[in-house]
């Protein structure tokens, strides 16, 4: 009995250390419960991806669930050898695009949707964080996305290039432009001026890319 238990914990341990790709292959072969390990690894990063992108917490929660539902439904389309991280972010982007197709957005920035800023060192830093968040949310979502992916999701530029379907050089140029714009927004907010483009940053339709199959 004890041995069985030990075997089980060892199995759990092994699972916790296994690479994402191996776990996903198990899910693909019918072990749906293995998805729980991947959920533990990815649900918080994905939630942050969505919440930094949309500023909407309920929507972010829903979209995270949607991603894992899609993984279950389309698990057969996961090809061995595909980096899981790239695959899940692809699904995540598609889920978001599909959501906007269904429910076109009318707002991008609502003060009450902004995440609470945790008090850190000083009032000044608090204010700075708040301004930075606003400056980020003022950017068009497309530009914001590349910053979120590189700075918060810690995807490497090559991964982003593959995800967005563009050249590595393009990713770098876009990151640089996004940082320039963020800096402008931030400076203007600091000066207490309205940003250059005060209108709501409308989402540009970002065409979803697919790995062969629908996800």
């Amino acid at each position, binding site marked *: 009995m004890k041995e069985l238990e030990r075997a089980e914990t060892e199995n759990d341990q092994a699972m916790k250390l296994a690479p994402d790709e191996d776990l996903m292959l198990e899910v693909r072969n019918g072990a749906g419960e293995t998805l729980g390990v991947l959920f533990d690894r990815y649900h918080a990063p994905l939630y942050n991806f969505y919440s*930094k992108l949309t500023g909407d917490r309920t929507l972010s929660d829903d979209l995270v669930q949607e991603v894992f539902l899609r993984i279950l439904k389309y698990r057969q389309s996961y090809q061995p050898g595909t980096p899981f991280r790239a695959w899940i972010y692809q699904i995540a982007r598609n889920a978001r695009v599909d959501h906007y197709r269904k429910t076109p957005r009318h707002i991008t920035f609502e003060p009450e949707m902004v995440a609470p800023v945790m008090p850190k060192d000083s009032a000044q830093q608090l204010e700075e964080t708040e301004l930075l968040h606003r400056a980020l949310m003022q950017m068009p979502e497309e530009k914001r996305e590349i910053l979120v992916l590189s700075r918060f999701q810690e995807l490497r530029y090559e991964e982003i290039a593959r995800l967005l379907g563009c050249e590595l050089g393009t*990713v770098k140029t876009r990151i640089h432009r996004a*940082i320039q714009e963020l800096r402008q927004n931030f400076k203007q907010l600091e000066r207490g001026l309205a940003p250059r483009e005060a209108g709501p940053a409308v989402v540009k339709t970002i065409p979803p890319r697919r790995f062969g199959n629908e996800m």
Partner: protein
Amino acid sequence: MKCEEIGELLPDYFEGSLKAGQDALVEQHIEQCADCREEVAIWKKLSLLPVEQPSAGSRERFEAMLQAYQTGRNDKASAGLEREKRGLVWNRWRSPVGAVAWSAALLVIGILAGNYLGNRTTRSNGGQDEIAAMHTELTNMRQLVVLSMLQQQSAGERLQAVSYSRREDQLDPQVMSALVHTLRYDGSVDVRLAALDALSRHGAQPQVHKGVVDALQEQQSPLVQVALIDLMLEWRDPDAAQRLRNFEQTPNLNPTVRQRVDWALSRLN
């Protein structure tokens, strides 16, 4: 070096993937150039933004979804087995000759269907049907989650199930009757109230309408009773006046509820 050239190096500088020599170039430049320095500073400042936490019920929702999904799959699989056992004709196809004929037939069907679907999707401009079908399927899945969560032991989870159901514009009849059942028999007043709230948007459905109106007689909690009376008034139920008069005869009726009945009756007349 000019800012433009430095700008090209900045993303790699952020990532820390520049060669040592280039690294020094960038650092030299930003010491002198305020604009580029600020760009670097803002990139660094982004780390101030807090990591946000998903809502507390996230894991439970995932578990419920997984469970619902797997139950759904097992049901389908066992239904398939049943069919196979019954099929006598099917067994004939299992002989080697049958198998070959069968594969050939499948191949032909596959090619034909492939051609047909291929043409059709190009014509219909990107498979709108497919997306619609996918959407319906996802909606069904979400409703399965609601059904499964309504069975949970903890009132918190049932409450969540009810609020989850509110996200759907159209409810499956099964989900509706589960919500009506919750309204009538759930042990927690909060969950009953939430269920009533969720159902209030579906009053146009006769099944919901009847279920809600009938629930009044059985309710013990004054809170739910008052909410039900208000909803009947709002819906302008044709039998509302009669029902309320009957209800008023209930012995030991809470005085506040009785007052509410009187008020509702005065509004109805």
